């Protein structure tokens, strides 16, 4: 009965939980179009992590520098302000023209998506550091480099983590869009491909997996945040 929702609702509109479960078991066992389910998920996550890693390294460096020096900010902020509100698909074609249809263009798209939130929060974090924190360090004899390392960077960490979490969700959402074009693997591609054949059960399995993975990724970041920024919200 449950398998077909008692035949009252078409399983194309909303497949029954049992149908989704069966479909999940089938996908887990036989894969989807040449790749296992985990290979699809792995392909998506691999692109995501590579893009995220590069975004962290570059956006934190440039963001902190921009927060610290008005000259650096004057160079980068207008560019970021321009890119940030653009929908990724708007410029995806250009990126494919530049970088080809391989993984690189997808990773670059995710990178751009993740970059802006991290950059913006780093700038905000640095510019919001209390002047008394810096003054105290200077009256205690710290030089510019030491102030940056011991005062500004840790003081900006709570903001940086806000950016990191935003960036993760933006990048993860973008990854589905990235897999729409010329991909043959990835959880997003699986969902888009299944939609061509009206395989609602596969679509639902994909969506649920994406949702759970998204929550897990955010939880990991949240966990890191409470560990590293242990003082946040305690004052």
């Amino acid at each position, binding site marked *: 009965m449950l398998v077909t929702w008692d035949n009252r609702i078409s399983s194309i509109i909303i497949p029954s939980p049992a149908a989704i479960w069966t479909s999940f078991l089938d996908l887990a066992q036989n894969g989807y179009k040449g790749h296992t389910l985990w290979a699809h998920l792995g392909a998506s996550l691999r692109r995501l992590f590579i893009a995220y890693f590069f975004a962290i390294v570059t956006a934190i460096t440039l963001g902190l520098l921009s927060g610290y020096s008005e000259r650096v900010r004057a160079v980068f902020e207008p560019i970021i302000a321009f890119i940030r509100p653009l929908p990724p698909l708007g410029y995806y074609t250009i990126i494919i023209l530049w970088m080809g249809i391989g993984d690189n263009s997808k990773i670059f798209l995710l990178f751009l998506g993740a970059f802006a939130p991290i950059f913006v929060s780093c700038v905000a974090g640095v510019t919001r550091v209390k002047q008394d*924190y810096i*003054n*105290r360090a200077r*009256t*205690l*004899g*710290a030089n510019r480099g030491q102030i940056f390392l*011991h005062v500004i960077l840790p003081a900006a960490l709570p903001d940086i983590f806000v950016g990191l979490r935003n960036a993760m969700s933006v990048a993860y959402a973008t990854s589905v869009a990235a897999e729409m074009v010329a991909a043959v693997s990835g959880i997003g591609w699986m969902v888009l491909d299944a939609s061509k054949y009206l395989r609602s059960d596969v679509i639902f399995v994909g969506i649920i997996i994406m949702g759970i993975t998204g929550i897990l990724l955010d939880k990991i970041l949240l966990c890191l945040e409470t560990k590293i920024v242990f003082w946040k919200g305690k004052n």
Partner: protein
Amino acid sequence: MTDKSMTNFFETANELISMDSLTLAYDKGGDAVPAIDKINLNIYRGEFVCVMGPSGCGKSTLLNILAGFLSPTGGTVKLNQKEIKGIDAHRGVVFQHPPLYEWYSVRKNIAFGPMMQKVPKKKTAEDVETYLAKVGLTDFAEKKVYELSGGMKQRAAIASALINNPDILLMDEPFGALDALTREQMQALIRKIWWNTGKTIFFITHDVDEALLLGTRILVMSRRPGKIIADFPAHFTKEFIEENSDDARYTEAFHQKRKYILSLINEQ
């Protein structure tokens, strides 16, 4: 040899801080009222100077100039005959809301100054113990900043300023945000520290009793433009220490002084 002792003698005989028609106008326009106006003042080694005045009289401005946070728009201020230019470690500052670094423990916050100045680790560790004991935080050394009460935070802040052995300690209403009981404990603490170390202290307060209970010299400032309208010695803090009691607080002399200061402030 003789030369050296001569210069030493010469230095100690001179004022620690000298201000010469010190002026600061935040708004540099022609007819702007300056925050402080042509202040001439010398501070000598070992003094405990308490500064009072109505709010907005430029007390904090004066302290910020001494610390180097602000540059005067006119006049000069010298420390040991050398003009103060910008912020450096010669003047320790204790803020009203202690900006301790929450990412470091109490111990590391106190060790911050020596750490930045690359003092050998062993000496720093010893000094930190000494100053932890001085402010009564020995048992709280490993605590996180957010685990401390307001009074304890201020103790840690005082220790972290003192460990650098600054020429003068600048305190901007350091106990203003504390409850009455804690404030009294902190007053006793800073008095003891002043007495035992012989440090020069420049202390801003809006509390007449606090000024009289702590200072060896009281300055009263006027409303904008800030000028010094009264400058007189006080002896109660020494009596406190010598008699080891707070009887001086209830003497006629104390009340007279108190009344006098209040009338100076209220008359404006």
